[in-house]
């Protein structure tokens, strides 16, 4: 019959209208992404509180977009004074975390980092020798 397809379509949409919506109320129900989800990177801290990075440049060379920047300690080539990641240009491919021989880098579960000025997207994971914690997140 001519209208059977149309009526079936209406039936489907009505069944969904009366069914339960699948919306997740994001800002009020905050769900963390799965464990190995590639979001923003951060630096581990080894047992005596110093950053776990050994300034071996593997991640700097391995990064396809040259997004990481490392400043070595002049007198101790095994220690990094400054480690900068420009997450405004990073493509979150995860090669740095994968290539690091000392597993110093890891992925935080945090993705709420929209900002009003571009400068805030340059994160100094190591600042003059010490690990900086990730910025706190202001809920809207």
């Amino acid at each position: 019959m001519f209208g059977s397809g149309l009526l079936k379509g209406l039936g489907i949409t009505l069944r969904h209208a009366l069914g339960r919506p699948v919306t997740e109320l994001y800002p009020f129900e905050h769900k963390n992404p799965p464990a190995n989800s590639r979001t923003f990177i951060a630096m581990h801290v080894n047992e005596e509180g110093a950053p776990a990075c050994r300034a071996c440049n593997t991640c700097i060379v391995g990064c396809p977009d040259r997004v990481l920047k490392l400043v070595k300690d002049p007198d101790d080539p095994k220690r990094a004074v400054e480690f900068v990641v420009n997450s405004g240009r990073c493509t979150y491919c995860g090669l740095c975390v994968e290539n690091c021989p000392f597993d110093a880098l890891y992925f935080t579960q945090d993705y709420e980092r929209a900002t009003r000025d571009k400068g805030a997207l340059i994160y100094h994971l190591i600042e003059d020798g010490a690990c900086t914690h990730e910025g706190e997140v202001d809920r809207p």
Partner: protein
Amino acid sequence: MSAAMWIHALLWLVGLLLLIAVVTVMGVWWERKFIGHLQRRRGPLHHGFHGLLQLPADMVKMISKEDIVPDSADPWLFQIGPLMVVVPAIAAMAALMFAPGFGLLDMNHGLFYIFAFQTLLPLGFAVIGWSCASKFTLIGALRAAAQLISYEIPMLLAALGVVVAAGSMRLTDIINAQAGVWYIFKEPLGFAIFGIAVLAEMNRTPFDLPEAESELVAGYQTEYSGMKFGFVQLAEYSVLFTGSYLVSALFLGGWNMPFLPASPLWLLLKIVACMTMTMWFRGTFPRLRVDSLMSLSWKWLLPIALVNIMAVAALALALPGIY
């Protein structure tokens, strides 16, 4: 005109304008909410209780938007365009009767008056489309004009069937004549044709070619920003309200309900049901193509509408008591 008539008319005018404002605000909210749930999502939710404050926010924002007049547009027609659509839509509501004797003016040619103003709409759309001087609005306007004109004739003929049955064009007579059996059961064919034709008059899916999102960006309203866009939406929802009123008054028995005392509440329920039906169609059906739209009207609806009138007239003559 006596003073009482003036006051009555003025009060009803303010009442009608308020009615349109409420219809538009609640209509847009209910449409976004209903189509949201149709699509398994929640629709406006966080601003006000279940999004009720969403529409006032849209209104405030639209009022304060910049009013752009493109250089290549014809300034005068561009400004008048939305008015030429809103004025007929609102004027057509003057003849609506919500209860026996409860209405602005119970004209004995009420139906004729409503259809007279509905025929002005294609002119308004054509003016909007032509004055914006953009290709998309031009195509949208010509489509709107062609569609409205070609679907008016089946609508009139189907309504003629009802007028023949009720014997008068006064809305209260038509509705009172349906106290026993509604005309939907006496003239099912007429109801089908009238429903399809009114759907096309209101530019609702599956006939919403004038504002075809996918082909013509936004159809004839492409160039409108801010309050002009608000006006066009106001006109769209008042035409939707008038269309739903006509379907519920002519075929669904207006304010009388079987086994229950007659009251304007039933009329309101039927109007809301008809509007929800159009939203249900809008959420489900795709859009017709232009030539199949035209062929549906001229080759299918028109002949069947003529057959319907002949049948109704013949039945009215043959067995006088049936209507």
